[in-house]
């Protein structure tokens, strides 16, 4: 009866185990990849606005840097646990590997409630974290980025603190910085754009025409709204339904991006958009469309509704929108899933571009970022597609196969196992 609580790190290990089994991975390499290589736990004294000092705790997990410096966000969250950070660091390792950028995976976090901290306190906490963790960070070691409740502003403070510690500027020690301080052009829509390039390749693989094809988007935040814009701009998709946390809208003749986003900006939601029919988030998933883009909720597609999903291609811009059970159902019925850690890897890819630009201290035009992102995503897509076809597995497992194989190869070449 006394069941153990769900442990995200154990889940990450199980996912690796599945891939390792298909790959018949060397047991020592497999065992090495099941654990983080390094963890640093830190204690941070911070002067509060009222003159008192509060002690915070944080960590940085460097999961595996066989392929290059670790890469992964820093989270500020009161419910932060080291197991969650380990799991997220593992997933970063596979994500960087699947898009074939020369980076490993990491993640960090501070246990804090940012809603109870003033801007000054947040700044002092961010700087305190870098003073402790800075010794294992750097362009060649480990490069953090924004994550839960961390912002470009926080990245700027952290970069500044690190520069003081080193005695020189090293912009590339962190990404997601403001544009005015070494950020990269093209980051705003990077996630959605990467997903759209994958969609284009998937359509090729399936011999589908995207021009005029119908699409539904669940979630209208950054990724979802850019997917609407880019889907129309790049391929002429007909987006017939979109939704946000308050509900969805449907118009079989298509929804105009500019008008819908203006409506959302004005009213706070897409619902009640003139000329559209109101639908629920659940109904949206079951629409008869060619492309379904879950861009908001985890586990939106699950064993209960997977059967009723009618889309030909599912573009997973959200993290974890499809459950493992649903994955199998979709695979069996012939739906083509572009799995999340491939599909939304556009973000980390542009982060990598930011590092590269910082290292050269030369900044690219936005079109150059798009062009290079396109190349990366296209080749990543085909690597995953081919692996899945070759091993007759669904695409998620296919993506794991590609990623784990790449990391394992680096581990072996380095002579670690």
């Amino acid at each position, binding site marked *: 009866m*006394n*069941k*153990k*609580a*769900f442990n*995200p790190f154990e889940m990450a290990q199980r996912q690796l185990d599945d891939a390792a089994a298909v790959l018949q991975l060397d047991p020592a390499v497999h065992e090495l990849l099941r654990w983080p290589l390094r963890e640093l736990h830190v204690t941070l004294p911070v002067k509060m*606005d009222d003159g008192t000092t509060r002690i915070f705790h944080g960590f940085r997990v460097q999961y595996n840097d066989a392929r290059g410096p670790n890469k992964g966000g820093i989270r*500020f969250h*009161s*419910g932060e646990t080291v197991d*969650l950070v380990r799991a997220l660091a593992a997933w970063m390792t596979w994500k960087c590997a699947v898009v074939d950028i020369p980076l490993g995976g990491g993640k960090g976090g501070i246990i804090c*409630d*940012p*809603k*109870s*901290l*003033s*801007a*000054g306190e947040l700044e002092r906490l961010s700087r305190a974290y870098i003073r402790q963790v800075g010794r294992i960070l750097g362009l060649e070691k480990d490069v953090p980025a924004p994550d*839960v*409740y961390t*912002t*470009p*502003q926080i990245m*700027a403070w952290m970069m500044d603190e690190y520069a003081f510690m080193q005695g020189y500027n090293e912009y590339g020690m962190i990404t997601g910085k*403001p*544009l005015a301080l070494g*950020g990269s052009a093209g980051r*705003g829509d990077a996630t959605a754009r990467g997903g759209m390039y994958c969609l284009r390749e998937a359509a090729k693989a399936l011999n589908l025409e995207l021009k005029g094809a119908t699409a539904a988007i669940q979630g209208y*935040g*950054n990724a979802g709204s850019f997917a609407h814009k880019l889907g129309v701009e790049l391929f002429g998709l007909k987006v017939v339904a979109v939704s946000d*946390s*308050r*509900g969805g809208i449907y118009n079989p003749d298509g929804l105009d991006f500019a008008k819908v986003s203006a409506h959302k900006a*004005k*009213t*706070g*939601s897409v619902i009640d958009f003139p000329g559209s029919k109101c639908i629920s*988030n*659940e109904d949206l998933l079951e629409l008869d469309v060619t492309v379904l883009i879950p861009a908001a*909720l*985890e*586990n*939106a597609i*699950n*064993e*209960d509704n997977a059967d009723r999903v009618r889309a030909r291609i599912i573009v997973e811009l959200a993290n*974890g929108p499809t*459950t*493992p*059970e*649903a994955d199998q159902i979709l695979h069996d019925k012939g739906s083509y899933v572009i799995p999340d850690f491939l599909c939304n890897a556009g973000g980390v890819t542009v982060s990598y571009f930011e590092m590269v630009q910082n290292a050269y201290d030369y900044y690219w035009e936005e079109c150059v970022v798009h062009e290079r992102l396109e190349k990366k995503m296209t080749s990543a897509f085909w690597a995953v597609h081919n692996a899945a076809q070759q091993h007759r597995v669904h695409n998620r497992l296919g993506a794991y196969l590609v990623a784990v194989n790449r990391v394992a190869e680096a581990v072996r070449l380095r002579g670690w196992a």
Partner: protein
Amino acid sequence: MTHTPPESSKILDIYLLIAQYPMLASDIRRRMRAELFRRGIITHQRFEAEVNEKAVLSQEREGLIGDQKEDAEQWELRWSRVRRTLTDFYFAYNLPIEILYHILDDLLMHQADGRSVQPDHSLPFNPELAPLEMVLRQAEKYEALPDEERDAVDHHLQELRVVLLKSMVSDQLAFIHIAKRWFTTTDFNMILERRIGTGKIGGKAAGLLLAYKILQNMAPEIFEKIVLPRSYFIGADVFYDFLAANKLEFLNQKYKTAEQIRLEYPKIQEQYTCARFPEEVAQQLREILRDVGKTPLIVRSSSLLEDNFGMSFAGKYVSVFCPNQGTLKENLRDLTLAIRRSYASVFGPDALMYRRRMGLLDYDERMAILLQEVQGHRHRQYYFPAVAGVAYSYSPIVWNTRLKREEGFMRLVMGLGTRAVDRMAGDYPRLVNLSHPQLRPEVMPKAIRYYSQHFVDALDLEQNTLTTVPVESILGPDYYPLRWLVSVDDGETVRPPLTLGLSIDPAQLILTFDGLLQRGTFVPLLKTVLTRLEQQYERPVDIEFAVSFTPGSSKPTLAFHLLQCRPQNQWSAEDRKTQSLPTDLPAQDKILLCTRMVPQGRVSQVEYIVYVDSEAYHQLDTPADYTEVARWIGHLNKSLEGRTFILVGPGRWGSSDAMQGVPVTYADIFNTRALVEVASNQRGFSSEPSYGTHFFQDLVEAQIYPLAVYPEEPRDHFNWDFIRQSKNQMSKFFSQQTKASRCIKVIHIPAERPGHHLEIIMDGQSGLGYLTRSKPTHLQ
């Protein structure tokens, strides 16, 4: 309606005043006549001739005709009496009573000089029965005494002030108890000068003047920044004159049934719209309109019961903006229409039902009007205050443990304060806890933008109307307070504006008020205002205010316009009666008790508890199952629409990490009245409550109360037995169930305890949910 000329009461006042000085009376009248002659009001000869004429006429009136002449002594007596009356008459009709006071003071001074006697400061009349003018003059006389003599008459002065307050301001004892310390004759004279008609000026005006007086006396260090809007009062008696003049029906609505009240209200509104104002009132309103020119006005209800201790009547009576941009005739029409609408609201179902609930039906409620210039400036075609808000000296809500309730709280908006007072779906005022003005319930730039004010209420001076406009159509470099109100959202950071150059894009601006909150004197000033008012009111208060800025300063140089003050609702005597937590409950009736970060409020007549069982929830196998629980909650939210229900579940409602709580979105829960988080450490699942922070502003605006109960802590309580033993009604809503839906228990309270419901009372310290017997519907 008959009106007694005001001079009649003046003659009486003069008569009564002189009657207090029987030995000096002749001298006084002699001096009065001298004053009349000196000023050329009448010549000496003409006056004496008129005395003769009137004396002869009085002989005839009394039957002395022809030979029945009276003797010289009697004639002399008659003649002197007529002369006395005529003196009073001419004086009353032609000269202000102040001159009589001067005559009196002068005579008394000479008396004192001549005889070296101590001045007599006794109160020579009963103020309760005396004319208002006489009471006021006596009070003035006392106030003018040197300090050493003042002490001896202080008790009389208090009595006089109390009588003046009762007849001119408010007869509510709790108010008088405080106000008598602060109001002086200058204030009463100001009210008289600015009052139309007779009667009290009502609760809202009373509260505003009192607060202003308290700050004048108790907050000298900030008082130069406090502005009292130019105000006029329409006395409460005019309300009755209006009813009588128009022979309006529906006078005793309050004793009708709720249904009749509701049905007949539209007719009343229609009747009032067509009714006419007494001409003398209309004339005075016309004069006010001439005085104020094109400055916009607001007609604010100020009923006798309104804003008093224990009954706020918040939102029950109508206040109306008059942009005042038409011709004089049009403006008068709009102004009187606004007043008529406010009058009609006395008979509105909301107000009458509220009075019925509070036991106030038998009170002779009348509507006075507080007519004020709208505080603001013109920007483009719009007129609005740069900032407006409501502030509470004791914060009704907190969203983290650092925030101190006793330092106060406010809701800030740009433009007219209607958006701070009212709750608007999808638009948000800035919530500020004054202990930590920089903290807000949001962190990420997107959330800060989303939970900000998107629309501004303003008066459109070109269209002569109240309007609502998107913020970006008002914000721009040409708006000088911009720096104090906005942050720039460049898509990556939300930061203070560095420059306000012409290139600034209004679409990038978010109303955060950070400049105002972080720099300058605003927050300390507001805290001083609230603290001083709370100290003198002897209970927490809430105020409405507006802020204006002086252009061209590197720090926000501001003026603080006080618009309203009243005792904070939940802390007033009457509400305490209904708001206090019962202490004698049987254990089985007590469902939950929370003691951390409890808001103030009440959720009545709860019919359903939707409970997510922590243990079953954490037994679920996959992340998808957790999400499914959230979707089931969403289904229940829909199914229970129109019913009163609360949600009770483990840990953090709305967490993106399902292990920490059910990952609902706001769309899944918006019909609930309370969101209860059970912080349990059972079986190793530690769930730290979020207090609703995942959608805190949505909860605040929808008045959904976030509560957290710690069952394992001694002060808190959660009735596990009731929850476990109750029958699960889930199958009545959904025939098919899943593993996930089985975590959810729907408890129908009347099914468990016939005739009962759940009541939740939150007093800011504790929140208690208990079972109580439901009243029959007709008594609710």
